[in-house]
């Protein structure tokens, strides 16, 4: 993954003002250049059937990694749920991949609590997504091209159904080259969802 100049400067500034001991993670949109094939890990649906990377080829895909213990992840799920019916007819697959150890149970309970209607259940069956995809913090959202290659990733929470996000995702659908400046603004939850 190559950091864009803008993010590199931001990260360098953050690092210079931040104490060396702090675990500061750069957030925002990062372009993955060159595009990187996504590792084929074991992902299942709520029936325990394979629903992984091999089934995502053919059209661009957004893969949001989340867990029920991660408050900012849970906070952005409703926006993803609203996004799915808006963008899927335009040609983007929307996947919410749950990293809970309890598997589908954790995902289903969280969906019920939040009133999620559109997102399907996808679980990281062998709990390898974090490592296999190189994700050290949640939420992280991967943007894949039609060959299931990662072309960008967004670290942190976003209003996925907002105008900036829609513009970014439409560029992905159109096969345009993404740029770091296209990232939607970061959203921080203001209350415990």
């Amino acid at each position: 993954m190559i950091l864009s100049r803008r993010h590199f400067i931001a990260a360098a500034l953050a690092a210079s003002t931040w104490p060396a001991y702090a675990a500061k993670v750069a957030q925002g949109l990062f372009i993955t250049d060159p595009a990187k094939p996504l590792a084929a890990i074991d992902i299942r649906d709520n029936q325990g059937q394979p629903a992984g990377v091999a089934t995502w080829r053919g059209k661009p895909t957004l893969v949001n990694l989340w867990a029920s213990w991660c408050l900012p992840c849970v906070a952005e799920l409703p926006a993803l749920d609203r996004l799915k019916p808006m963008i899927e007819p335009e040609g983007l697959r929307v996947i919410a991949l749950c990293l809970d150890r309890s598997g589908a149970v954790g995902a289903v309970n969280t969906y019920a609590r939040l009133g999620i209607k559109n997102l399907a259940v996808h679980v990281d069956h062998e709990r390898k997504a974090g490592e296999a995809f190189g994700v050290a913090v949640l939420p992280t959202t991967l943007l894949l091209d039609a060959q299931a290659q990662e072309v960008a990733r967004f670290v942190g929470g976003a209003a996925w159904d907002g105008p900036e996000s829609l513009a970014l995702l439409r560029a992905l659908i159109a096969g345009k080259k993404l740029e770091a400046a296209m990232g939607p603004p970061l959203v921080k939850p203001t209350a415990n969802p």
Partner: protein
Amino acid sequence: MKLGSLMLAGALALAALPAQAQEFSGRFLLETHDGKRVNDESFKGKVRMMAFGYTFCPDVCPTALSTMAAALDLLGPQRAEQVVPLFVTVDPKRDTRVQLKDYMSAFGPSFIGLTGTVQMTDAAARSFRVRYEIHQPADKDSDHYVVDHSAGIFIMDRNGGFAAKLGHTANAEDVADRLRQVIDGESK
């Protein structure tokens, strides 16, 4: 004269000891998520895998506890049961026992959340040389503030002695390898 210099050397050595102990003692006195008061000696006989953090991550959440859980899975049940995974909150104000208990349950039944007063958690963090800083709330909601902390996973031997510290980029296999070394090295 000779005795005098020996005594002086002895005094210097003694004076140096507390400074070293202050650097990394691995000592703590905290309360578990079930309200039991514990210290580093309470887990004698078990290899400890320990992380500091907080459950209320305002923007992004580290996956250290997931890594710890995955490392235990990799060890298999026989070795995993010789390890006690501990999580010390550096945000005791928001991380109540109920909140900690609920959070720990997401990672596995053996995970123990540790909390205490601000003074107790301060002392524990100091003895592991973990530094953290609570930032002033960015808005009027006083519960919405950011805590920086030095991420990493500590591995301590069965006597509570330091064995390893793995950085926040360590993966489950790295952690499992170090745990295996400590478990098997000691049982030989």
